[in-house]
Structure formats: C-alpha cells, structure tokens
C-alpha cells in the first residue's frame, strides 16, 4: 500500500515539532521481564510441583473407573466354514436379512463394585463418522422446522424417496442410525436401562423440532440402520439425537443409557443383544461398554501421564539448570561478556 504520499504530504504541511508524549517517543512505562536464574528455577520447580500432583490425581481417577468392554460383532454372527470371501458375503446376507432373529446373549462379570450412575455405551471402531461426505449429509433446518421438510439440500443420496417425497430426517447420518439394542439381566433379573436424557438438552430444545415427525424414513430398498417411530417427534428420539452428534474420531462411543443401581463385584450380567447393525461390510467392530465415570470422564490415563512427564521433566530441568548455573555462573548484564569486549580487535 503506497500511503507514503499521504504521510509525507501531511508531515511537510504541518512541519511543526512533534508534540512530546511518552507514547510517540516510545517511552511508555513498561514491565520488562528478565529471566533471572532464580525466576527460571522457581518456574520449573513450580511446574514440577503442580503438574505431578495433578497427573497423579488424574491417574488415580482413571484407575478408579470400572469399565466392562465386550466386543460382540464377531461372536454374534454365525460362523461360516467356507472360504473367507464367501463367508464375508454370507455374513452380509445374514445381517441384511430383516426376518432372521439376531438375538445374541453375552455374559459379563463385574470385576469391581460399580456405583451408579453406570453408563451404557456402544462403541464402534473403524466407523468414520467424521468422513467428509457423511458429516455434510444433513440438513439442520429440516430437522428443526416442520415447514422446511422439503429442504433437503446436502442430504443426497438420502434426500427423497422413490416417489420424490422428502425423507425426514434426511441425510446419510440419520439413515445410518445405529440399531443394535441391548437389554440387561442381572442374576437373570432384568436390569432396567434408563434411556431418558441421554441426548443433549440443547439439541432437544433448539436443534430438533418438537413438531417434526419422521416421514418416509428407511422406506427405500437399502436400509442403513434403525427405523423411527413416525408418531414420536424428532426431539424425543434420543437415540437419533445422540447419533446425530457425529463423533470426532473413527473409534467412538455413544451413550446408550444409564443403569441407576450399583453393581457389586463378581455379579454376572447378561446382555441380550439384537445384533442388527451392519458393520460387516467394512469390517467395523462393535463393542458393548458399561462404565462408571469420575471427574475426568471415562477410563483414560493419557493426560495423567502427560502431566507427570511434564512435571518430572520440569524438575529435572530445574536440577540441570542449577548445576549449569553452579558450574558456569554468569553475572547478569556483565558488560565483559559483550562480544566486542570478549575479543577486542587486536592491534
């Protein structure tokens, strides 16, 4: 930008002495931090003594989480003793056949006492809910507003049914709604799973309409996942709402429900699974998870390790710094260290 002209014009016109101000002379009062050895040591020691406790408490919190993970997708499908390709096709046929009974019972043993609320999740691995084509395939306006049901932009190829009627809710995400169901038996007594309030309140009130009802959903030949009860408005379909919050990573859990009673150690839990969801086409894994939570969420000790590493490293650096300081002390601001004083030009 050539504003040079302007600058020179204005300055030549009023060629007065610039008025003095600490700002224009760049002499504003300022804090000039200098990293003195004391300050540096204090900083590292402080980092060490704060980070290590945080890390430890994180680790212990993660340790206290009790979780049961059961991968069932391999075991809940008949084994076909033929060549792999054929077996793969047979599995797909099996899973896509709506008429067969796909009930599957898994038995789990509670390792430790689990206090309520205990969260029930399903976990999918290698399912790219963050795939670009997938993430974009939705239309929030249609979900929110009953009059916008024809707004199916971005929803292809699940925008309209064969009669060109709009699908509500449209888009690939809704279409592929997870449809395995779980019911629990504790000591052969049904253990209720509370499926209330598993979706975000904000989604219920603002993102999905209370008067938008599913329409033409899963009405086409290719069924991606669950069907929806057309008499329940979208914002009451908690499973849909949870599913529509697309996961960040290709391995993810989604909340299925809560168990509101404590589980004692060594109790036997039977999980009755309706194994409907097709992850076999792309070799995705399905897992059933029940887990308690603490203040750090689920079981994950990574951050704790990070904190302990950083804290430990800080303490180590502090020690290293002290030894460097003791071996090679350098007074601050000593002019004799200036390059031109160190090696003066020889005469």
């Amino acid at each position: 930008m050539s504003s040079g002209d302007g600058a020179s014009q204005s300055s030549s016109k009023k060629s007065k002495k610039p008025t003095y101000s600490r700002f224009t002379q760049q002499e504003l009062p300022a804090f000039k931090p200098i990293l003195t050895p004391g300050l540096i040591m204090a900083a590292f020691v402080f980092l060490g003594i704060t980070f290590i406790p945080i890390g430890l408490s994180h680790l212990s919190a993660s340790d206290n989480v009790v979780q049961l993970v059961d991968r069932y997708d391999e075991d809940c499908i008949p084994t076909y003793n033929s060549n792999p390709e054929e077996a793969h096709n047979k599995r797909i046929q099996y899973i896509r056949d709506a008429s067969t009974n796909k009930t599957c019972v898994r038995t789990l043993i509670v390792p430790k006492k689990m206090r309520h609320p205990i969260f029930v999740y399903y976990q999918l691995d290698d399912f790219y809910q963050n795939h670009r084509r997938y993430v974009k395939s939705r239309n929030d306006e249609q979900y929110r507003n009953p009059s916008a049901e024809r707004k199916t932009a971005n929803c292809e190829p699940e925008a309209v049914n064969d009669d060109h009627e709009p699908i509500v809710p449209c888009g690939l995400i809704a279409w592929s709604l997870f449809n395995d169901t779980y019911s629990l038996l504790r000591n052969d007594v049904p253990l209720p799973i509370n499926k209330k309030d598993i979706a975000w309140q904000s989604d219920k009130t603002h993102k999905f309409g209370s008067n938008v009802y599913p329409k033409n959903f899963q009405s086409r030949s290719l069924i991606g996942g669950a069907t929806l009860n057309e008499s329940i408005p979208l914002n009451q379909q908690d499973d849909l709402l949870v599913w529509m919050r697309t996961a960040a990573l290709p391995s993810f859990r989604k909340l299925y429900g809560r168990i509101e009673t404590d589980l004692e150690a060594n109790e036997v839990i039977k999980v009755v699974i309706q194994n409907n969801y097709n992850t076999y086409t792309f070799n995705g894994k399905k897992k059933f998870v029940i887990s308690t939570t603490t203040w750090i969420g689920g079981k994950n000790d990574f951050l704790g390790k990070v904190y302990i590493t950083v804290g430990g490293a800080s303490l180590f650096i502090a020690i290293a710094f002290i030894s460097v300081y003791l071996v090679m002390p350098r007074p601050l601001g000593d002019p004799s260290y200036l390059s031109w004083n160190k090696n003066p030009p020889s005469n």
Partner: protein
Amino acid sequence: MISVCELLRMVDLEIMASQVTTASTINSLPLLPYYRSASLILVGNLKSLSAALKSSSRMESDSPIEINENSYQVHDFIWHSSSQRSVSSIQSIQSKTSRGHSVKEVSYGELGSKGVRHGSMGAESEAFSASYKEINDDDARLIYINDPEKTNEKFEFAGNSIRTGKYSILTFFPRNLFEQFHRVAYIYFLVIAILNQLPQLAVFGRGASIMPLAFVLLVTAIKDAYEDYRRHRSDKIENGRLAWVLVNEQFRQIRWKDIRVGEIIKVSLNETLPCDMVLLSTSDTTGVAYVQTTNLDGESNLKTRYAKQETQMKNLEDKKISGLIKCEKPNRNIYGFQANMDIDGKHISLGPSNIILRGCELKNTDWAIGVAVYAGRETKAMLNNSGAPSKRSRLETHMNREIIFLSIFLVVLCMIVSVCHGLWLGRHKDELELMQFYRKKDYSETEIEDYSYFGVGMEIFIVFLMSVIVFQIMIPISLYISMELVRVGQAFFMIRDNQMYDEASKSRFQCRALNINEDLGQIKYVFSDKTGTLTENKMEFQCASIGGVDHSRGEDSIEDERTGYPDQGDGHVLQPKMKVKVDQELLNLSKRKHTDEGKYVHDFFIALAACNTIVPLTVETSDPAVKWIDYQGESPDEQALVYAAAAYGFMLIERTSGHIVIDIQGKRQKFNVLGLHEFDSDRKRMSVILGCPDKTVKVFIKGADTSMFSIIDRSLNLNMLKATEAHLHAYSSKGLRTLVVGMRELSSSEFEQWQSSYETASTALMGRASLLRKVANNIEHHLSILGASGIEDKLQQGVPEAIESLRTAGIKVWVLTGDKQETAISIGYSSKLLTNQMTQIVINNNSTECCRKSLQDALAMCKNLTTDSDATSGGSGTGGNQLALIIDGTSLVYVLDTELEQQLFELARRCTVVLCCRVAPLQKAGIVALMKKRTDDMTLAIGDGANDVSMIQMADVGIGISGQEGRQAVMASDFAMGQFRFLVPLLLVHGHWNYQRMSYMILYNFYRNAVFVLVLFWYVLFTSFTLTTAITDWSSVLYSVLYTSVPTIVVGILDKHLSRTSLLKYPQLYGAGQRQESYNGKLFWATMLDTLWQSIAAFFIPLLAYWRSDVDGSSIGDLWTLGAVIMVNVHLAMDVTRWYWITHAAIWGSIIATFICVMVIDLLSFLAGYWAFFHIAKTELFWLCLLGITIGALVPRFVVKVFVERLRPNDIQIVREAEKFRSSRESQIEMNQIFDPSRR
C-alpha cells in the same frame, strides 16, 4: 565553402589523432554509461572543437544553414566521446550551479527508471540542437495564439481542469479492485476462494471462505477511498482558482479549469501559474520574468525566464495578436522544451527559458503574459506527479524465499493427504457401496448410479484441491497485511521522534517509502555526500587574499551590528539580511580607495558584488525604517560572496538586465551590465562586462583556480600571483572553498569587437550556447589577478560524533564529493572520518595502466597490513592499522565499468574509510552500484542535492537531507530528514528496532499459521483423508484474522528489547542486523521444528485424552481451536520483552476474544456445533487439556530459550540485563549530546 559537416568531420579526425595515445581508453569510453551524458564538457579537445565551431559559426552568420542529420550525429559523437575525457571538469566550487544539468542526467539518463525518452542530452547540447531542429509535424502540437477554438479543433488537448483523484464514484469499485489484485498474494487468495465455490470442493462455507479476502479488500478500499477523497477535495480547490485570461481583447477572470490551450493568460506578482505557458511579454522591458519553482522541484531560489523580444514589444490588449507555436508533445521533462513560434512572418525558436510551468510562482515581476501551451494533466508538473520508485526490503526478499519453502511444504501436505486418500479408496473399493458413511451408489433413482464418485484418479485430484483450500493459510497472507500495518506504525514513531526533528529547518523526519523500514537495521555501507550533508551548505565568507595579501579573519574579527553602510536614499535603512563577520583591518582598507592596496580591495569587492547572477530582493521587516536585502540566487557560494561584499560596504541593491546598482560605502553607483558570460562547467568561470561610472569598461571574472590561472597574465605581478597561489593552497587545506577573482580593463576597440561578436552570438539561431562560450573565451584572457576568496562550508553539528557512532556500529562511511582532494581530506579530518592512525592510500591517476598499478600496489599493501593484524574481524573497533582510500573521479573513470572494478572493490572492502573526490553525480551512483552488485551488504546513500539523486535511487536505502539545496534529493529519497546526525538515531535506534520487530514478526507469523495448518492436517489423517475439519469453518477463518493477528501487530509495532539509551551507548549492537541475526534460514528451520512439535502437542494431547470416549467432533474442535490460540498467544507472550498495557490488552484480549467467538459460534443453532462448547467446558478434562497443551507445547521452546540465554547470551541479551539491573547506577550518564539537539 566547406560545409559544417565536413568541418565537424575534421574535428573528429583531430580528436582521433589526439586520442591515439590513449586509444585503449577511448575504445572503452562509449561503453561507459556514466560518461555518455553530454552535459559533461570538453576539455582535452576543447580547442580543436571550438576552432571548428568558430569557423562554422562564421558561416552561419552569412548563410542559411542546411544541416543534414548525419552531421549532427557526427557532432554528437564527438561531443560525447570527447566529453568522456573531461573528468577534470568536475566542479570543485560551483558544481552545484550546474544542478539543472545533472538533474537531467539523473532523472532521464541511463540510470533513470523512467526511460530515456527525453534524451540524455544535457541542456547545453539541447539548447544547441533545439534551435535548428525542426519539429516534425506528427510529433508537434500546434497552438494558434489567442485562438483556442482553432487550436483545439480536434478536441485532442486536455483542458486545464486537473484530476489527481484516481477514481470517480462509478469507477471506484472496478478500478480499485483491479489495482488491488495486482498483488500476487491476493490472486492466490482469490483462486482459493473461487475453488471453494465449486460444489465438489466446497470445504468451507461459501461465506466463510470469501470473508478474509473481502475483509482485506475492504480495508484497503476504504483507505484508498479516503485518500482519493482528499485528492478530489484539493483538485476542486485547485480547479476553482481564478486567473486573468484574454477574452475578446480584454482580460477577464475565469476559473482555472476553464482555461484552454491557446488562450492568453496574464499572471501578476506572487500568483501561481495555472498552466504551462510560453512567455510573450513581461512587465520588465527586457522581457525577463522571475519565477520560483518551489512547488515543482522544491528549489527556492528565483529562476529567470525570458519573453522573446519579438513578442515583448507588442501591446497585447490593444492589438489582436496571432501566431502559431509549434511545440513538442507533452512530456515530463521539466528542464526541456522545444518549440518554434511563427509570428508576424518571423520564425523564432523557443527553448526551456521561454516557458513557465504550472505550479511556479511569479516573483519580482509585476506581470507576465503568456500563451497556454500545455494545460491540465498535460502540464509538466502533473506529468511529473509520481512517487518515488518502490524498493523491496531485504527482509521481504528473504521472506519470499521462505514462503517458497512453505509453499513446497503445503504441496507436500496436500500430496500426502490426496495419495493417502487414494490408497484408502483402493483398500476399501469393494466396500464403498454399502458403507454407511460413504455410500458410493445412489439408490434413489431407478437406475443405480455412482453418487458423487468420480473414480480414484479424480477423487485424488479433488482431494488435493480441497486440501489446498483447507491448508491455504500455510502461506501467511495475513502477514502481508500485518507487515503493512506494522510499517505504518513504525513510520509513525519515526516521524514523531523528537530527536529527529530539525529545529533549524523546522522539518520532521519523513517516511516516503513505507516498505523498507527494516532495511534501516541492516546497513553496512553509508555513502554520503559532503556539501549540505556533512556540511551545512551555509556558505560563509571566511578570508580573502587580495592583491597578494592574506586577510584571514583573525582574532580581531567583529560582528558589527551596523554592518555595511545603510542606505538612506528613500528614507529606509537597507541592510543585508544575513550578517557576516568582518575583518576590521580589511574594512578599514576598503575605505581607502586611493592607495594601491585600497584599489585592489575596491575592485575585488566590486567584482564580488557584480560578477554574479544574484537578484537582490527588498524585504519588509518588522521595523518600518529598516528593509532587508535578500540575495536570491542559484549558488550559495555567490550568495556568500555578495553578502560579504555588502558587509564590506559594497552592497548590491538593484539588478535589471541592463544595469546593476551597487551601494559603495553609502554612495549609489550605477554600473551598466554590458554583457554577462554565465558560469558553465567547462570554463568553470563566469565573467561580467561592466560599464563603470567612470566610463571605463572592465571585465570581471571569477572562477575556479584551475581555470583562472590559465588565463591570468603571468607577466603581470608574478609575486602577487605566487602569493595568491600559496594562500589558495592554505585555504583549501583548511577546508575552504576557493574562488579566484580577476579583472581586465577593455580598450574601446577591444570592447567593440567583443560587443559585435557577442551580439551575433546571442542572437544566433543555431548553437548559441557554444558561440557564447567562444565569445567568452575570447575575452577572458590576460587577466590581472585581484585576489581569491575562501568560503567556509561549515560542518553540520554533531557530524564527527555521528560518524564515530556509525563506525563503532560497524558501518563503513564513504564520502563521495565533487570537491577537490585537499578540501575533501580536510573535511575528512574535521569530521573524524580520517584519523591520524589511518594509513592513507591515495589513487590519483589518469590512465588505465596507472590505475591498475596503483590498485595492485594498494591491494598488496593492505593484504600485508591485514595479515599483520587480524583486522578483518567485524571491521569495527579502533584498531591501529586502519586504511583509508582516497580516490578521485579521474581515476574512477578508468576503473568503473572495467575489469579494474573488481580490484577496487577488493581494496575498498578492506578499507575503513573511502573518500571519493571530484566525482560526478553518475559516478556516485556507479560507486554505489559497485558495492551493491558485489556484496550482499546493505547500502545507504545520503545526500541533499540534485547531484545525489542518482546515488540515492541506486542505493538500497536512499536518504534525502531537506536542506539548502532544494528538494530534489528529498523527492527521490525513501526517507528524508533535516540533519546528517539523525542518521544515528535512525539507524541505530529505529533501524534496529524495526529490524528486530519485523523479523520476529515474520517468523512468528510463519509459525502461527503453520501450527494451525498442522493441527488441521493431523486431524485429516483420522478422517480417512477427507479433509473434515473439527474446527469450525468460521474459527479457521477467524484464526488468522482475529484470534491471533492483533497481538503480533501490536508487538511488531511496540516491542523493543533495548532502550534508546542502550542502543546509542553501544553502537556495536547494530551488528545484529548486519549479521542478520534475527532472521535467517537457521532460525526459520528451528522455528519450523518448534512448530512441528507444538502442533503435535496441541493436536495429540486432546486426541489421546479423548480417545474412545463419546466426545463429538464439534466439542473437541473447540478444544483444538482454543488450545492452538492460547498456545500461540502465550508463545508470543513468552517472547515479549516489554509489556505495555497495550500489549497486555492485545494478548490476553485476543484469548478472551477467542473464547467469546467460540461461544458465539456455538450459540448459532444452524451450525452443527450448537452448544458444544458449553457442554465440554463443563468438564474438568477440557481445562486440563488446555493447560496441558499450553505447557507441554511451550516447555521445549522455553528450555532452549533459557539455556541459550544463559550459556550463549548474545549482546542484546546482556545489555538487556544490564539495562534492568545496572540502570539505576548508570542511567542518564550516556545521554550523549549529539543525540540531544536541545542541549547544543
């Protein structure tokens, strides 16, 4: 009769013959661009050429001239080739008066970037050729005087209304956009935005992708619109001014914009010219008009313009005048004009002295009447209305190299993504149809087709383009805008710096170029002019040698309040405006007219008062009884001499073209000026022929010693001559500028002979200048010497200290001057440039061979010296074996542009000081170019006069001194200031700051954008390479525009690691910039390594902390956004060395603003991430992650920083510590006086 052509050929042969001895030089001469300009003059072959001209002019007088083009080419060749040998013609004394010529060379010569359309011919040769050259009808414009309708029949000439505004309301948007898109960066921006509009590639929301570009365009457009509005406003005022124009034989007032070409315009005293016009008549009977060209070229002295006698006589109001002017097409050469005028059947040629240009002011002349020839935008003033050529800073050039690395990096990232995507597709190609998250097949139609699937190859390509869009900010476009803003801020501080304000000329520092601020911190060579730059160019008459007696001002010098002899003739006391200290003894002597000595003194001062082109102006003062006489003239030396004469009682009070009035000791005497041979740079003297009151006719001559001693009659008074010569030597070794004055009484026959030839010459149509020169040469001989004067050119204040500082800072100061060697050396000593410990190498030769030999000797010598003492380290310090090279212009002729250049460079590089004396303007540029071509070091040229323009434009940084010599240098410069000593705060303080700030800012900007791109990139690896971004579109866009931009700009403008005091106390600190310590390849790669680590920390800490959890994309996206922004801002905070409240506000404010923006984005229910932030911010894990990112990412950097500062501290670091912990003791001691003008 021999034709002129043949004659010229004879001359040519003669020259050839005389050149045999120096044949080798001659052959190479036409290749010397510096000497191709014709304004340099013949010396060696002057005699032969003037002989030829003599005979040719004789023929001219009695025969109509028919000259074919060839002869003139021949002539031109002679002129050029022989002028190349005229090195000794470089002026010692009056070089400044030939400024008009040098300007031409500079602006339009070989070095000028504006092309050579207007020729590189000097004024003399132009004048010479102008008179005979018929203007081709195709290239001419015809102006019918007083008939604007006929003149502009075809409506092809511009009206006089001007429009400096670039745009009108209608054209603003298209034109402004067009201009803005000249910047490559913007085109990159635009292409990306357009790509993003394609449905297949739409990565960002369409609005989001356009926004940054739109924002930048809008800001620039608003700025441009405002500037344009100001221009429109001033245009309106300008167009509405009134002028007197002849309409129906009566002068009427009309507005400027209505003036048409061909109209006759009358301008009164002190009025501004509305358009370019050819003078027809003036109030002065001889047709002289004085104009001031301050608005045009900034020179404040008066210039004379003439109306032709043929038109001067006419009474325009009574008689309808008609005529035809044929002149050249409008061009921007303000020193040239060619035209012919046909009036009353006479054919008159017009030259540059017959035209007055728009923007000039009429002075000292009651009225002037002229005919408009160029109007409006075709006036020379408007055609010249362009800014200084833009330069690109060193840092930016280096930055562009790194930008290329970043581009490569960008392409690599995109390739990785697209190839991986291709592999992924290949691996899953059997599964794509049913995969819920891919759905290759579209079953919605009866016929099943692929849905948005174009085959692997095409998909790879699309993903590549999409990744370019996503990763676009790897090329930090916002950096360009930030740099502009930072430079504006830096310029603001430089302009406002009180220490660079010149009290004397009341001028502030000026930033004329905004894009090379940071170059000021890397200067290695300073090329300085002497006169007006190191010295004040306020000439002061110091001493005189009159009649062989030295009248140096001794102890008894007095400053008489009543200096001079106030003239009380008309009831006013006239006093010279400037007081001069007088030597009492000489004053007494001057009153004793009848002694022998007194007579010399009398004639000497008459010569000083008369032999000049000074115009005395009477100025009212506050005291009504006193009037000041202000001497206006082109040469400051002449002014000094006239003031001196006035002080000794020889006061020039009136000058018309016919006579002058000198008040001699209170008595007014009128001298008729019978003839005046103006100064020209080949004679190097001027003479005036006066008819004295006692009826004698005398010729007074003053000039440079070399030219004067050759024409002084040595038979007369040899002792006196010897004495004068000795005095001259003494004066010049004191650093004074010397002039020799002589006179001769003319016998009546001699006078008559002269008069007739003078008249012939001055009315000659062809070759007038050379004819006049010949006449002058005929009369200027056999002089008796009157004496010599010594004028002091005072050193500017603070110059020695400034030079000392610069040298300590490791900057080599070269002085390039037109002065004589002795003068230059003496100034060198007084300015502490040269010291007694230095070994001087003087190269003063006049042949290639000699030059080669002395260069070799010198090189050998200095190699010896440097091996003895290892003085190569840094070149700073005050070691004993410093070398000073003194080389003169003559030698440079044989060195520059030959193979000897390399040797000179080798030699000069080893020398601490280089002094070039007697160099021509273009040689100055040549020397600068010599260094610029061969080293990477930055060069700075500083000068004040038109003769420095070429070097100012050539150097990396050009600085103009807004001093006595007009504004030519300022106009061509990048920065302008009042005094040489301001160079110290400018370079050592502002340059240092600018460089440090800018280099840090560039590195930081690379880092902050790359970190963000890498965070996006890592995520893409987890989305089956499909370029999903967890970070929302809006945050990606706002990241570089809002989240992180303000702090870097604020820090770029305000942060300073060292205070002014320390920087001035330790000039050596400047070396950091020269050694490119703050921005270099190593730092760049280190920064990139750091960037890689930080991006890994910022991405993978949240990723792994939330691995296999039920976190959704938007929530973790918010975490990544905030993590990156906090990390980047804390990184900056870590490096800030000075925390003002503004810095706090900017850095912490940016973080807060980011939080607010993220919240606002998550409050928009139509976006996928609705409420995500509020969900995730409720969890402790989120905050632990933020803390973990910030600390984990920055600890390595902090550790490296701490250990480097501790173990290998650089000078800046140490001084910074000293500033903090030792300042209480040592503060304020070092406020060296040179840096504080108020104390002097």
